[in-house]
């Protein structure tokens, strides 16, 4: 997933604005700021590029962030600290707490308000629906994107969610177009638009006004193409994000556990025998 996003960002840069705009169409649920008072808008600023997306799921800020991005926690603080978002930074091994000069600062704000540096951790802060949370990589600076204001015309209500396509698992990066169930999402822009429901008008929820690229409510929505390969709505992305990144390093589960347990028991048994012989 991380690689996918990195690759996609690069691809978008190459394709240019037109491609980005069309990709926004293809990624309805995630493209930009939330439209109404539902959902939490997530601003991710890597320091070089900024992206805005909308998470429909609730919960802690960590859960919200995980529903729209790939998050890696430091080894020593699993689940409670953010070390890497969408592959940034690549240089941090994510074993200990990130240094104070290069970490993901966590901010929250009301829609259209100003950023507040959070005084609580990302796993203990629960953003209210209709607010914004922001992440900025650096030494604690604010995200350069202001918290997006609520769109003045919330006309396209998210009445009908797009059906998840039959193959919701974009394992491979999308250099190759992957034919999805209904409408052949090709990498080329024309085919993307041919997706069912992705007509020129709003396909679903939030991102609809952004079909004309300039009119997007979010200042910059580079993360938009997340969904483009095979439009996975919120829930699908969650499961993808939590996919283990290094399955091959973990070996086969039960066998490892059995071998390790047997080894421990063997050595402990040796200790027991030695202690018993000394006492006897």
């Amino acid at each position, binding site marked *: 997933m991380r690689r996918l996003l990195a690759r996609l960002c690069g691809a978008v840069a190459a394709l240019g604005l037109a491609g980005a705009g069309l990709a926004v169409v293809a990624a309805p649920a995630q493209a930009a700021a939330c439209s109404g008072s539902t959902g939490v808008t997530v601003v991710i600023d890597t320091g070089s590029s900024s992206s805005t997306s909308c998470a429909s799921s609730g919960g802690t800020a960590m859960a919200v962030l995980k529903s729209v991005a790939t998050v890696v926690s430091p*080894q020593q603080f699993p689940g409670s600290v953010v070390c890497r978002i969408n592959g940034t930074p690549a240089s941090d091994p994510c074993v200990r707490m990130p240094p104070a000069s290069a970490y993901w600062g966590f901010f929250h704000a009301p829609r259209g308000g100003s950023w507040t540096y959070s005084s*609580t951790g990302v*796993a203990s802060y629960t953003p209210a629906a209709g607010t914004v949370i922001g992440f900025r990589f650096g030494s604690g600076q604010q995200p350069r994107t202001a918290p997006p204001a609520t769109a003045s015309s919330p006309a396209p209500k998210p009445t009908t969610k797009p059906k998840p396509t039959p193959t919701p698992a974009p394992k491979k990066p999308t250099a190759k177009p992957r034919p999805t169930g209904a409408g052949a999402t090709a990498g080329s822009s024309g085919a993307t638009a041919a997706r069912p429901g992705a007509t020129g008008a709003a396909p679903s929820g939030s991102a609809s006004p952004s079909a004309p690229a300039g009119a997007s409510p979010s200042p910059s929505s580079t993360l938009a193409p997340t969904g483009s390969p095979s439009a996975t709505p919120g829930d699908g992305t969650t499961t993808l994000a939590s996919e283990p990144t290094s399955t091959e*390093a973990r070996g086969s*589960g039960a066998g490892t556990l059995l071998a390790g347990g047997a080894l421990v028991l063997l*050595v402990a048994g*040796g200790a027991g025998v030695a*202690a018993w012989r000394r006492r006897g």
Partner: protein
Amino acid sequence: MTRPLPRAVHPAAWWGWAVGLAVAVSTTTNPLLLLLALAVTSLVVAARRGSSPWARAFRLYLWLGMAIVAVRLVLHVLVGLKVGSTLLLPLPEARLPSWAAGIQLGGDVYLEGLLGAALLGLRLAVIIACIGAANALANPKRLLRSLPSALHEVGAAVVVSVSVAPQLAESVQRVRRARQLRGDGGRGLRAVRRIALPVLEDTLERSLLLAAAMDSRGYGRSGAAPERERRLTGAVVLVGLLACAIGLYGVLDATTPALLGTPTLVVGLALSALGLWLGGRHVRTTTYRPDPWRGAEWLTLGSGVLAAAATTVVARTAPDALAMPLDPLGVPALPLVAVAGLLVAALPAVLTPEPPRPAPRVVVRGAVGVAA
């Protein structure tokens, strides 16, 4: 291969082995590695501990470790930050004011968070077991004897103070017994008052006796060094220790300039060593039957260092393998290099000479005390 004669392995070797094992453990939360390290320390202690009283204290360290894990779990449920997705125990959560927002009082307990807390507790428990193993395997009095000669006096003072507690207990026993023989078997506060005074007197008398004995053996004569040199030694040691402290701070705090880190620490250590050497030049001490440093010592020390090195290598190359996967929950890995390192650390259990057998049981208590 002939069996080596029973002898005590050098205490410094055991301490090096234990510290190496503790370093290896400190980098991991992998339960398989933690339990393996615990089994290895138990095996070596069971096979090679001496027969002195502190050698039997390893069990106490294990109990202490269990208490640590239990306390860690309780604290996690009470005030810990509960993360995870597998709900284990639904509990109410108290809303705290904003200035205490970092603390989560109560709240639903999740399997992932609880497991993480237990593993952190287990890691500390295993580190403490390593130190306990060193205590059980190495005789502290013999370790103090191998101090550099500049610290000889300090070492002697530490030995005296270490043996105060058992002597005090013995003194109390003696006085109580004498009073009981005279028909005064009182208990409670009144008895304490009647026992305390003789014990105090006994202690004073003993320390005077000890001081006289040490004086007659040449302790406390520091007049050999000229005044200037003593001042120089003191200044060097002081500056060295100060540099050590600053260097340690620099190493631990990433925001200090690089010059204050490792270079200052190295200079401080060098100055301290120089000070010890300068101070030790004029102190001439001999050791009665010094502990030898032979192959078994090298093996013991090397196995501990190897365990630490193996885990460090794994931490550099595959840090994921050293952590219990909690996000999402998974099966811990079994990194072969780290496992091999820990198994090597178990070798002293069979390859070092056996400790000397205790004297047969028929010997009366007093005689054992003299022999020790």
